[in-house]
């Protein structure tokens, strides 16, 4: 069923989220806030080398230490063949995952886990780690993606033979795979170009930067079952990955979803969770593990460093005739960077007849990359949107106009296959051009940049139950961890369908034993997919309510409609029964009323975003200040506009950090030099202006309330928006991120010198 979006009572308003009070009072329980009686503290020994062969690990002294209850090393893990485990947005190779959780044979990066201990206190656990004697043969390492692709680079995996080539090579390399996609004939297209631009760009690895470090408490019982408390973006994913890694049944592991302190894609896999279960089994006691901030930086999954080439040809009237890109992404120590998504997304805001994108997935001696908000797309958009900006300059055309001429619209065939239905790409550009920000004046050393971005959004598996209580209140039971207010969205949709007040609906994110599998909170899918499940389940309730009311009234169910929270007879006497009336009688009319829905949602509806950024560049210091920032996005229908705006603002600021400050900084030994918030500099409140938002609501026809995913697209445009603004302010084109003041100053000096 679809609803009249202009006549909604609750959807589109801004109520207080159901879990809000607990989160402002400190009562909400996050990953590390839980403990169990008799619990041990688990810690991990990590590689001090970027690349080394493990000659031996002697744990005998650690095991002998009083208070130490369990010690495990890689050899204690079961061997698992390569197999892709789908986790919603991404697929994880469980063989590689097992080696990432505990190294065997070689350590592949600074921070790679190679042993773990559980002891009665944290101090004893630390002492035990120091007593583990590891002999290494240090090997040559490689960090940079272009270096890693060279034939003479140190090879990480002897069994890695590049996939996706016409002929599989016979010698191993760090190139895990090559992919290519395209439209039309690129060579032919370039023949019609009046202007061709060819540029190269680089970005550094950056971390999601969630403030909550990973934490877990696991208790393995003698009957072979395990209880796991942890925060993650997908507790079903945690359960299934732990089951595979440990050779357990999924049903034997019950994962309780703690409140999650941010994820942005980084909590869609496992690191310490299987170690805690395995050590709890050995020790016969619960094991709690928490990562330090340094461990989070060194050994979880940042988004990769990238190196990209872009070639675009246009006619003098601004029509793109061909585009050709090559994206090289490092995946970290194991294959599986988001280069595929980058290839699919980079050019997608534009309707192109001739386009080609080639991608390389490359391993190097850095921690295994993970998903980060629209994985791969911000990098690709940085390259493409920087080139687009330069082209607009060369064409002497307004950058929005240039994009509008080429913008994707209904009927455009995207490079990754589909033909778009109703999309908001052009609407967003028009709204951007009309925004007062775009027309405002700039002062000296100030500049303005714009950039666009696209993200697919995903659907996936969700299920939900709506329980109607005897007193007429309602509980929605769902299985998607709430990272950004989705409980509110679920309660609002359920209340809208049922026609009752928002306050009468509670929402519970249930554990893995209390509801069936839900894909994780990722891919901007929850308000879309879980929202459909909740809406369907509430509609299922409505049908049952109508049926019970019809029986009570002695008429056919077809003659009863649901309106304003009550069943109303359309024939005979004007009778009506409220939800509360029907619920009160439920026990006598067939039992408690429960609505259910289980779906695999399709048609997530892509998002397009365009951002406007104003900067001022200090010519003396190279310091770049963000003066004003506006985000415009096609959000479908905003269920709770505050949380939609929040996604856009948060994404924009992460992008500003990526553009200006954030980077993984490796020294010549391949060791990470900045694994802390002091040296890995994320934006703070005083770095920023208010972030303006414009919600362009182009309803998604595939959702009863028109919802599109929202959360990821906001991180796609900012990188290029910032550098385009820097160009406008200074005339200097920055092609490598981050644009630190040092880099900016050097570029300004070089620019001045060249001009003199």
């Amino acid at each position: 069923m679809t609803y009249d979006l202009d006549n909604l009572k609750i959807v589109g308003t801004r109520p207080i989220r159901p879990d809000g009070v607990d989160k402002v009072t400190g009562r909400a329980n996050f990953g590390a806030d839980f403990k169990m009686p008799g619990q041990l503290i688990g810690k991990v020994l990590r590689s001090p080398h970027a690349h080394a062969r493990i000659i031996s690990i002697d744990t005998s002294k650690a095991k002998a230490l009083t208070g130490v209850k369990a010690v495990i090393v890689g050899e204690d893990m079961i061997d698992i063949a390569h197999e892709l485990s789908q986790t919603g947005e991404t697929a994880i190779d469980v063989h590689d995952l097992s080696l990432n959780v505990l190294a065997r044979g070689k350590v592949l990066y600074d921070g790679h886990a190679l042993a773990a201990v559980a002891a009665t206190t944290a101090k004893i656990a630390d002492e035990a780690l120091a007593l583990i004697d590891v002999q290494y043969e240090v090997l040559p390492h490689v960090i940079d993606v272009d270096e890693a692709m060279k034939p003479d680079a140190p090879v990480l995996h002897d069994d890695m033979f590049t996939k996706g080539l016409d002929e599989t090579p016979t010698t191993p390399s760090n190139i895990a795979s090559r992919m290519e996609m395209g439209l039309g004939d690129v060579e032919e297209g370039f023949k019609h170009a009046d202007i061709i631009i060819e540029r190269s760009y680089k970005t550094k690895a950056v971390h999601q930067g969630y403030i909550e470090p990973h934490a877990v408490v696991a208790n393995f019982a003698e009957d072979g079952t395990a209880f796991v408390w942890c925060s993650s973006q997908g507790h079903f994913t945690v359960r299934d990955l732990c089951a595979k890694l440990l050779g357990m049944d999924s049903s034997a592991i019950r994962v309780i979803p703690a409140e999650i302190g941010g994820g942005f894609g980084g909590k869609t896999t496992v690191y310490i969770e299987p170690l805690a279960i395995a050590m709890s089994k050995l020790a016969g006691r619960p094991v709690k593990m928490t990562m330090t901030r340094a461990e989070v930086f060194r050994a979880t999954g940042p988004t990769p460093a990238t190196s990209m080439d872009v070639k675009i040809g246009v006619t003098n009237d601004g029509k793109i005739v061909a585009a050709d890109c090559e994206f090289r992404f490092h995946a970290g120590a194991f294959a599986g960077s988001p280069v595929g998504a980058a290839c699919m997304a980079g050019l997608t805001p534009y309707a192109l007849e001739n386009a080609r994108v080639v991608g390389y997935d490359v391993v190097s001696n850095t921690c295994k990359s993970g998903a980060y908000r629209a994985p791969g797309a911000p990098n690709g958009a940085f390259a493409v949107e920087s080139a687009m900006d330069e082209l607009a300059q060369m064409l002497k055309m307004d950058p929005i106009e240039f994009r509008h001429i080429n913008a994707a619209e209904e009927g455009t065939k995207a490079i990754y296959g589909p033909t778009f239905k109703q999309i908001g790409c052009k609407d967003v550009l028009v709204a951007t051009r009309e925004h007062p920000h775009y027309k405002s004046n700039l002062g000296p050393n100030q500049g303005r940049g714009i950039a666009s971005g696209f993200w697919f959004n995903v659907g996936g598996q969700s299920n939900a139950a709506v329980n109607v209580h005897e007193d007429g209140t309602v509980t929605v039971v769902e299985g998607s961890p709430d990272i950004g207010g989705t409980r509110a969205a679920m309660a609002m949709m359920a209340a809208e369908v049922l026609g009752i007040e928002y306050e009468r609906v509670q929402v519970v994110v249930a554990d893995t034993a209390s509801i069936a599998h839900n894909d994780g909170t990722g891919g901007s899918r929850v308000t879309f997919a879980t929202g459909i499940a909740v809406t369907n389940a509430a509609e299922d309730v409505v049908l049952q309510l109508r049926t019970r009311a019809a029986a009570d009234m002695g008429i056919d169910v077809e003659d009863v409609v649901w309106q304003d929270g009550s069943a109303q007879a359309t024939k005979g006497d004007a009778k009506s029964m409220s939800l509360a009336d029907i619920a009160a009688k439920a026990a006598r009319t067939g039992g408690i009323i429960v609505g259910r829905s289980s779906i695999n949602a399709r048609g997530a509806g892509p998002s397009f975003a365009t951002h406007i950024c104003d900067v001022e560049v200090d010519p003396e210091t190279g310091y770049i200040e963000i003066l004003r920032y506006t985000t415009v996005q096609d959000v479908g229908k905003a269920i709770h506009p505050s949380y939609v705006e929040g996604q856009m603002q948060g994404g924009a600021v992460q992008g500003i950090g990526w553009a200006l400050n954030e980077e993984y900084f490796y020294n010549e030994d391949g060791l990470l030099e900045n694994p802390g918030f002091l040296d890995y500099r994320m934006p703070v409140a005083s770095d920023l202006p208010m972030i303006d938002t414009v919600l362009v609501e182009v309803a998604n026809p595939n959702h009863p309330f028109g919802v599109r995913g929202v959360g990821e697209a906001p991180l796609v445009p900012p990188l290029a928006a910032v550098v385009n603004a820097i160009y406008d302010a200074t005339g200097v084109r920055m092609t490598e991120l981050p644009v630190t003041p040092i880099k900016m100053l050097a570029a300004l000096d070089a620019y001045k010198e060249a001009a003199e």
Partner: protein
Amino acid sequence: MAKIHVTTTINGDPAEFLCEPHETLLDILRDELQLTGSKEGCASGDCGACSVMLDGRLVCSCLVLGAEVQGSEVETVENIAQGDKLHPVQQRILEHGALQCGYCTPGIVVAAKALLDRNNDPSETEIRYWLAGNLCRCTGYDKIIGAVMDAAADMRGEAS
């Protein structure tokens, strides 16, 4: 080494605990006293998730040793709402949707209240610099700043 015996006042109530010399106030609050509202994001004074008031001063509890609070008064996020009445900062954060994951929120609440207790009419810039020690990765700070400005207006008794 023997543990240190510490007597102190936490959220207005007398409290005592034994701690090792290296244990931080944050460790003590969370692990010994079950006050888990204060969060650890970095343990190095860079994120502000562990913000508490120590003798009326805003501090990162991860940078204070447990043994240091002998005879002091500590106030944590758990003591900011009075009974079931939220502080204006808490109420406005909820109304603005100025939290997404909510992990930074306890620290923001403690820090913002500390600001408004000394200055109930701060400018946007003053709020931004005061909260510069509180990392929020989710919100981009916009709604947090707006919420604190509105809470300040509430505390000045202005209707909004």
